[in-house]
Each structure stands twice: as structure tokens, then as C-alpha cells.
């Protein structure tokens, strides 16, 4: 067995649109090792989100094989898919996707609620994660009272709390200014240093350059997949607690 955490072979995906079908992924081969930090680039509509959704078992594929942690992912029902997502994967979205009527702490704790962990325990753990991300004093605030950067950090805390093996981030900095984007990347690099595999979809070069490997999609196939020469490791471990 290899130490691949994600292995994809000849992956195809089409969207049926009425009578016609839109062939989005046309044979993707991919091998991501545990602990890697990878970015997926490509122009808009090239299939980046589609690929990420398949990797996150939010969507199924038509043809080809997908192994997550050496487990073959096949058609499964929603309950099984939910269990995989809860145990293996943490999602970070461009639009944060926090629940508006839950405060920061409750949002972070949500994945543990789905694991039937008691409210007291999960809130305590959520507070720990918020503290590590320097947001402890915001624990009781609603998302509407927070800045974009703060919201994304809460989303990161929510992705981390279930201790996933892989973090999937779809344009995590797309809605943030440059300064805040870099702070978020600092945190993601720190997360990666903890041993968690991080996969980031982005179309910003400077974001991609902070990952170890860049995969470029074009028209549903991998155009380029190479080590990042400009890779900058995390500056220091203290970033995790900058505010």
C-alpha cells in the first residue's frame, strides 16, 4: 500500500442538461500523498470545483476509480457519504457557509453534533479551536458580526474540529483582500504542518505558489502537475495564533 491519501485514475464526470450532456472531467489521473499541500488551478469553468466535490464525496463520478485513504469510493447512499465526510474531510468554501443563526462557537462545534458528541464537550472543543485561531473573544458572536477574514477562520476551525485527514478548500481566499488572504494561507500552511493534507482550488498565482504542488486543469484534463519551485514554507509556527 502506498501512502496516497487521494488517488484518482481515469476519472470522468458529465452533467446531464436535459437531453445533452456536458462532459466536464475527461479522464483525470491524480495521486496526492498524505501530508501534501496541493493547489488546483485553471480558468473558470475548467472543472476545478467539480473535481473537488467528487474528492469530497459531495458528488459522484461516472467512470474511473477514486481511492480515499486506500478505500475505493463507489456509489454509496447519503448516510454512508455523510459518515465519510464527517470522518475524513473538512470543507472550506469561498462564501464561508456559516449558519447564520448560530454563534461562532456553535458553528465550529456543528460537525461534532453530527457525531452525537454532547453539547458541553463539543462546545469546549470548539472554544479550544477558536482560541488557537485567535478568535476566542468572538465565540458568542453571530457570523453577521464578523469580518470576512474572521468568518473564514471560523470556517477553518469548523473544518478542523472533526480532525479530518484532508482539508478541501474551494477558493478560500476568493472573497478576501490580499492581506487577509495571506493570513488565511498562513493558517492553512500551519494546518498542513500538523500533517493534514490540504487541497486548495484557486485561480490566484500567489496563493498557488504557497503550496508544494500545483495542478493545472484545462478543459477537463490535467494540463500540468508539478512541484512548486517557489514554494515558501510556513514562516513560523506563531501564525496560528495571530489575530
Amino acid at each position: 500500500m502506498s501512502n496516497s491519501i487521494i488517488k484518482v485514475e481515469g476519472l470522468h464526470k458529465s452533467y446531464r442538461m436535459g437531453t445533452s450532456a456536458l462532459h466536464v472531467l475527461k479522464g483525470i489521473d491524480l495521486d496526492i500523498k498524505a501530508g501534501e499541500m496541493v493547489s488546483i488551478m485553471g480558468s473558470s469553468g475548467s472543472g476545478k470545483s467539480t473535481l473537488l466535490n467528487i474528492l469530497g464525496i459531495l458528488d459522484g463520478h461516472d467512470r474511473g476509480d477514486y481511492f480515499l485513504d486506500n478505500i475505493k469510493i463507489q456509489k454509496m447512499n447519503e448516510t454512508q457519504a455523510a459518515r465519510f465526510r464527517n470522518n475524513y474531510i473538512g470543507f472550506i468554501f469561498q462564501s464561508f457557509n456559516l449558519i447564520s443563526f448560530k454563534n461562532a462557537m456553535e458553528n465550529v462545534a456543528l460537525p461534532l453534533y453530527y457525531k452525537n458528541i454532547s453539547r458541553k464537550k463539543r462546545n469546549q472543543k470548539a472554544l479550544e479551536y477558536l482560541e488557537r485561531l485567535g478568535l476566542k473573544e468572538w465565540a458568542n458572536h453571530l457570523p453577521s458580526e464578523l469580518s470576512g477574514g474572521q468568518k473564514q477562520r471560523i470556517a477553518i476551525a469548523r473544518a478542523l474540529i472533526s480532525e479530518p485527514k484532508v482539508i478541501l478548500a474551494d477558493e478560500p481566499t476568493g472573497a478576501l483582500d490580499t492581506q487577509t488572504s495571506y493570513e488565511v494561507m498562513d493558517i492553512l500552511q500551519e494546518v498542513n504542518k500538523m500533517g493534514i493534507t490540504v487541497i486548495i482550488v484557486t485561480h490566484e498565482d500567489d496563493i498557488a505558489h504557497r503550496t508544494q504542488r500545483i495542478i493545472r486543469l484545462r478543459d477537463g484534463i490535467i494540463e500540468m502537475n508539478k512541484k512548486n519551485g517557489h514554494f515558501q514554507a510556513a514562516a513560523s509556527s506563531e501564525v496560528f495564533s495571530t489575530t
Partner: protein
Amino acid sequence: MFDLDRWQEIFNAIKQNKFRSILTAFGVFWAIFMLVVMTGSGNGLINGVTHGFKDFATNSAFMWANRTTVAYQGYDRGRQWNLTNADMQTITEEVPEIDVLSPRLQGWNLREGQNVVRGERAAAFNVMGDYPQYRKIDPCTMPWGRYINKEDIDLKRKVCIIGEKVYEVMFDEGEDPVGINIRINGVYFMVVGVFKSNNPNINIGSNKKETIYLPFTTMQQSFNYGDQVHFFGFTAKPGVNVQGLVDRIKPIVRKQHKISPEDEEAIGGFNVQSELQTMEYTFLGINILIWVVGIGTLIAGAVGVSNIMLVVVKERTKEIGIQRAIGARPALIVGQILTESVFLTTVAGFLGLAMGTLVLHLTDMAITAAQAQAPPDEMTFFMNPEVGLPLAISALIMLILVGLFAGFIPAMKAVKIKPIEALHHE
């Protein structure tokens, strides 16, 4: 189930659709409210009517003589005939399933002018002749003295018992009437008691409150009724059908008095048992109607709740998508929607139950107050509107079922939401 996060979601959903939630919940509220008020009113009617004869022997019947309507054995139709003491004897001997048989005299010719006199006081009252066993058919209490007894009958004593109204008119309030003589149609009788029927709503022949009962034998003799019996009441032994006894008594009487077997009119009768049965069917009909209307309204309310839950699901599509993406199982989402639906219906329904009970309670108080004002003679046909614990419990079960039913389609819709599609949803 009782996790705070679940309730947070419910309250948030209700808060965000406050007006719509209240409107739809009102449908369920109204259904339960109506059901409670209607059932309560129905019970009030039943209580009111049955109260008037709660103690009356339900397994009883009365029979009397009418003119014949069929010519028979040389007699023309239209002949007036009479029941006699001998008939009573024969019936008692030939129909052993009769428990008590009580012949009665109805002195309709006696109530004329002021037929009852005591010193200065004079008034018109009904007079009837009775046996002691009549009390078994129409139970009463004796505020003063005693009922007619066997010695009165055997010795043809000139005694009487009087109704409440007779006592009121002929005596001062609180005056002991026992031992006092009153003159009835020229004959003196000693009052031995005052009776108060437990069944004021059943009056056969006369208003009991305005009636004087004489011993049957005394009355036959004093007022020249010969061996006539004007009518009689009887009760069946336990487990015996009253109509069956009526059907056996009729041929005996027909044979004695040469009445055609085809003459259905000649023997009059009133079967308390079958009348009660008819009344019970009427009550059952009322109850069925109430439930049909109530459940119809409740279903309309459920459709309303179902509708708002569909809106809630649609509005929360994105939220549900997020929850699914971060690991919520479909069962949790279904549970969420169902809990919310059941919560909405149960709360609304319980408010309806509470309001309905309150309205019934107020009505009850108003009726009690009105009855205190009303003349004591007035009959009551409505009292104690109420709903019992069984209704409350079945309402609760019904509400939970209705809530589940109302939440079912929205929940299925929520489960069908694919996480990615929901995440695209703005």
C-alpha cells in the same frame, strides 16, 4: 432529540417566518378549539338531557287502553275498553320475566276547578293512584314523611303523598305536612309524605311536581273507578328485552278483551328502553358529526403546516446543504423537519385545547348562574359541558400524528436536496 441545537433551528425557523407560522398554526389551533368546544357542547346536551331521567328505570315500559280500530268478534271498531285488576293478575302470572308491575290510575276527571283544599288554601292539582312499587320505576326522594306502602293499599287507607309544587302551595315553607288532612275532590286524605322525583324530565300523564299520589286501591274505591286500571308500568328482569315482554303482554290483553290481533292501535304503549336507544343513536350521530367536522378542519390545518414546512425547507436549502457537506446524516435532517412540524402542530393544538376548555368552563359557569336565576320548574337541556381526559390524550396523539403527517412530504423534499446543488443555491 432534546439537543439544544435542534431546538435552536426550530425557533429560528419560526422566528424568521413569524407571521406565516402563526397563521398556519392558527389552522391547527382552530381545529382543536372547535373539536373541544363542539364535543363539550355535545356532552353538555347529553348531560342535560340524561340528567332529567338519570334514575328512571331504563328497562321499563308503559301500556294503556285505546279505542279499538278494527271490528272483531261482533264488536264494532271504535269501542272503548278498559284494563282491569284481573288483567294485572293474569299478566303477572303469565309473564314471570316481569320484575315489577305497577298499575296506575290517572284521575284526569278530578282536576277541575280548585279540587284540592286546605282551610283557606285551594288549588287545582292532578291526582293519581299508585302502588308502592311505582317508586322502583320512577325513583324519588322524600323530603317529608314516607312513600305509599303496602298497608295503605291493603287497608285502603285515606292517605296521600304530594309533589313539591303541591307542598309549596298548600303549606308554609318549612311546615311539617305529615299528618295534616287535605280535601281532595270532597274527600279528606291525610298527607303522609312529600316526594321529589329524581327524574323531573320524564312526566307520564302529568307534571309530577303538581301531582298527588293516592294508594291505588283507595283511589279506585273513593272515586268509583271500579276495577279499572288506567295504565301500568313494568320493568323487565335483568337481561330481558323490554320489547319482547310488550309483545307477550299484548296477546294476553287482546284475548281478555276480544281485541283483533290485527289491531295495532288498541293497546297504547311507551317503551322507555327503545326510546333511550333512539336517543343514544341520536347522540352517537351528533358525536360522529362533531368528529367528522373536527377532523376535517384538522386535516386542513395539517395541510397548512405541511405547506409552511415546504417553504421552510426551500428557504433553508443552502443551510441544509452546508449541514450535509459537513457531515449531517439525512436521518438528522428528516428528524429536524419532523420535530419542527410536530412541535408547531402540538403547541398550536394545545393552545386550542386550553382555549376550548376555558370557553367550556366559562359557559358552564354562565349556565350554572343562569340556572340559579331561573324558576325551579324549568327543565334543563344543557348542563356540564365538558371534555374528559381521554379526549385530551387522543387529541395529543392525534396532533403528533398530524404533525408527522404534515412534516412527511417536506422532510422527503429536504432529504432529496443534494449537498452540491444546495451549496450553489443562493
